[in-house]
């Protein structure tokens, strides 16, 4: 990370906080690259954790916690620290998943008999989500509503809807394989 790069990213983020969506997109792309290198470095080769999951979790955190960056402080250490925190968090969550795996195994055995998506499977997929995630995912992915319709119907901000949708879909695909 060169000094020039740091200045560029800090400038972009300041512009983004002023409402510049184009600057924000460039900033997030730079941040994603930085996080990807931090995550790969920390995870090492052959890690069971996908570096891209860390990138996405970190970008979400950067967005939701952007008030914890002081506009006069360097931005790269802020991003790297959040990225490392998300790597540690991912390992922690994995450790906790061990006991869940047995239950998942029996579900897989039952599912082998019939591979089409039953309403029961959809319900099962939604059951693992938080209530907010469930509402959002079923409104958008099942009932086919748009993000803005959903945010109005549920009385949530659009960002919150996007975050819940992203997290919900990620949780489902983690549990049932790629959709």
């Amino acid at each position: 990370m060169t000094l020039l790069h740091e200045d560029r990213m800090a400038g972009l983020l300041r512009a983004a906080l002023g409402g510049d969506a184009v600057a924000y997109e460039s900033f997030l792309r730079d941040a994603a690259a930085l996080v990807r290198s931090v995550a790969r470095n920390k995870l090492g080769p052959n890690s069971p954790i996908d570096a891209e999951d860390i990138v996405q979790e970190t970008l979400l955190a950067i967005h939701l916690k952007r008030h914890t960056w002081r506009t006069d402080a360097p931005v790269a250490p802020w991003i790297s620290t959040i990225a490392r925190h998300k790597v540690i968090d991912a390992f922690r969550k994995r450790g906790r998943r061990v006991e869940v795996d047995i239950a998942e195994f029996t579900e897989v055995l039952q599912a082998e008999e019939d591979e089409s998506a039953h309403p029961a499977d959809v319900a099962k997929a939604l059951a693992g989500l938080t209530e907010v995630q469930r509402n959002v995912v079923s409104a958008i992915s099942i009932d086919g509503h748009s993000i803005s319709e959903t945010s109005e119907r549920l009385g949530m901000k659009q960002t919150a809807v996007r975050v819940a949708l992203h997290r919900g879909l990620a949780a489902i695909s983690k549990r049932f394989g790629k959709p």
Partner: protein
Amino acid sequence: MMKTDALINSLAEDAGPARYSMQGLWMLVCCGAVLTAAAVFLVALGPRPDLGLAVQSLRFDAKFVFTGVLAVSGFAVLRRMALPGAGKRGWLLLLAPLLVAIGVLLELAVLPSDIWLTTAKGSNGWICMTFIPLIGIAPLLAFIGGLRHGAPTRPTLAGAVAGLVAGGVAATFYAAHCTDDSPLFVAFWYPLAIGLLVIAGGALGRLLLRW
């Protein structure tokens, strides 16, 4: 799995100022912490009756220097615990213990050695152990609430620092009630009472400060 590019595009649409400012948030938290601590103190204990005379005593006034420095320096560290990548300035936490140590040395030099032990034990030890944690509970919850809006990357430690600051605030109020003014008493009992809040804060941090 949603692609990272799609995520970036959807987040970029929400460019704009953050929902909070940490500075404004902490101001609110501090007001809440001090007001609730004051309310619990006034209802449960109240200041000692000879307050007017006591303020002329150096030992009485020194108690507020110790506890005040703990609260203020601890708060400076606490704020930084909520900011990823910021230096935490942990050395600030040594200031209050250092001042107490100096106070203890001066007191040992002044007092005859046969009353050191009874002075340290004092007569309010258990009241101190009860009411500092009691006064500190609401401030601790306020500080934990402040941290939750930040991004503490070390949840247990951040919670423990919140307990320390809550202890500093609570001890400042408690000191106005207590008639044991010797630094020997302060050095013995106050850390035990504040320590309970530190432990509670660490446990709460572990539970509540994941993000």
